[in-house]
């Protein structure tokens, strides 16, 4: 099951920040820099979307039809002081379905993970975005419907 879930996750992108972030980049939820003094990446954009086109989320939404086949979780960080790792943890209701490990590179970076949908996946979901120290940076909630 875990293997299957893992296979359903497509981990992507380490894109040049200059290409990815333009003037329209939107910070939905930003965590302050770590109090410990260590340099942490700053989350400036996080969204659930139907697709990624030209490194941008398309049709950001909170309700997705199962007929779409897959759903994407997009996150953008600026700045990224040093190479680090973040995780996208996909939960259906409160059950962890899968965890995607994503590597961020300086100076800024965007990444996404995706989940392939099956009939049984209908219901409430959430994706938790956590840093390498397991600090919760953002929770995105959405539903898979008919």
């Amino acid at each position, binding site marked *: 099951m875990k293997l299957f879930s893992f296979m359903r996750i497509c981990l992507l992108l380490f894109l040049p920040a200059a290409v990815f972030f333009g003037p329209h980049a939107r910070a939905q939820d930003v965590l302050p820099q770590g109090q410990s003094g260590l340099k942490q990446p700053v989350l400036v954009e996080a969204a659930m979307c*139907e697709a990624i086109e030209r490194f941008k989320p398309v049709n950001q939404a909170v309700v997705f039809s199962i007929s779409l086949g897959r759903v994407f979780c997009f996150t953008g960080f600026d700045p990224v002081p040093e190479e680090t790792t973040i995780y996208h943890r996909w939960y259906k209701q409160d059950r962890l379905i899968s965890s995607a490990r994503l590597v961020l590179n300086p100076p800024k970076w965007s990444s996404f993970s995706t989940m392939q949908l099956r009939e049984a996946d209908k219901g409430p979901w959430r994706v938790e975005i956590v840093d390498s120290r397991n600090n919760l940076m953002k929770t995105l909630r959405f539903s898979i*419907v008919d």
Partner: protein
Amino acid sequence: MGQFFYQFFGIGWQGFLDIALNSYILFRLYVLFRGTNVLRVLLAMGVFWALRQVAVSLGLVVTSWAMQGVIAVAALVIIIVFRNEISAVLLTRDLKSFFWGIPRYQRNTPVNIIVESVYELARKKIGALIVLPLNQGLENAVQEGISWQGKLSKEMLVSIFWGDNPVHDGAAIIQGDKITNVGVILPLSKRTDLPSYFGTRHRAAVGLTEQTDSLVIVVSEERGKITLVKDSQVYDINDSRVFEKLLITHAGQDSAAAGVKKHTRELAAAAAICLICVTGLWMSFSRGMETLSTHTVPIEFVKSDQDMEIFSSSTSSVTLLLSGSRPLIRALQPDRITVKLNLANTAPGTRKLSVSRSTVTLPPGIEIKNIEPTMVEVTVDVPVQKRLPIQPLWTGQLSKNLIMTQATTSPETVSVIGPEQVLTHMDTLFTEALSLDDITASSGTMAARIALKPPTLRLEDQEKEAVQVSYIIQNRKAAPL
């Protein structure tokens, strides 16, 4: 009252009434048949019955069978052989004496009048035959006779046996202080050992005492002698004091107060024996007749840790199949049955507790045949409070040209109370299902209730169970990939 009996004796009020009623019936039988051979045979039957019970309990098949036969034969013997005594008891007594009164010996018989009269008759050589009945009736032993019902006096008695009196040849019956019958013909004895000088009067006296417990006084017409006959024994009377003593003994008046005391003691002992016998019988029967009954009893959970709470239980009651005697089962009150499950030393979480016989408390005499269910799954935990976000639970289908870009609830979070083990692993509360089918192009709000699952959860503020869900709908910009 019934509860009192039940509490202390394990017998319902019906049991007490049953025992009391039958004890009284047995006591009445004793009183009515006291002094007769019927009672002796009944006692013998009781002994045989007890022996049969012992034989049955020991598994002595032939002995118990034989005892049963003897009892059956004894019952027939009582009816056939003692029919006279039985009919005398049943016919000669009125309802009051049958159900309530206690027949005494001839308490009020004026013995001195009888003695004086008899001596007067003897002195005048007037033949006389006087009968003093005891317990057994005379109806089946004597013939004819004329009802007299006159108060006893010396003159009256002497005049009855006066030669010119038409009834002087028969016997006079004295009951209490009354002459009840005169001219009564008594049965003659067929004994051959009687003295030759005994005439018809003597033979009749002996004949009656052979059949009854009466005392008969005979005054010889030829010799002027007094003879007393009791239990077929003939006593020649030469001393008036001896005569008087014999009469007093027969009448039960010996030492007046002492006699009453003795009589009372005898009756009290008989009543106690009747009560013991019937109680024993009742216990024997009631224990033997098993009755089954099904009772649904609520479970009482006993917890020693006040911080612990029961959040759920697979069942709140158990069904008990109980057995016991019919009176006990019928008198069984629901509040007398308890099922207590002890939660002391039970670790937090969902646990399976066994419902065994030791967890059930029953009144004495009742037994458990079956318990259903035998296991109860109960969730116990320390209640904790946690603030959780609320997420709308969407169902249905949104129009293909629309997308829902945002959905928020107001309030966004609520405080919920529940088992620590449940809430530790819980990060979201969901609303009840909200249909997308009716949502059109416009944004809006709708009311929704929070679905508390598992049901062991409860909101800190119960009034906030309903939340407002606001949503934003936009047209789809482009077809998805």
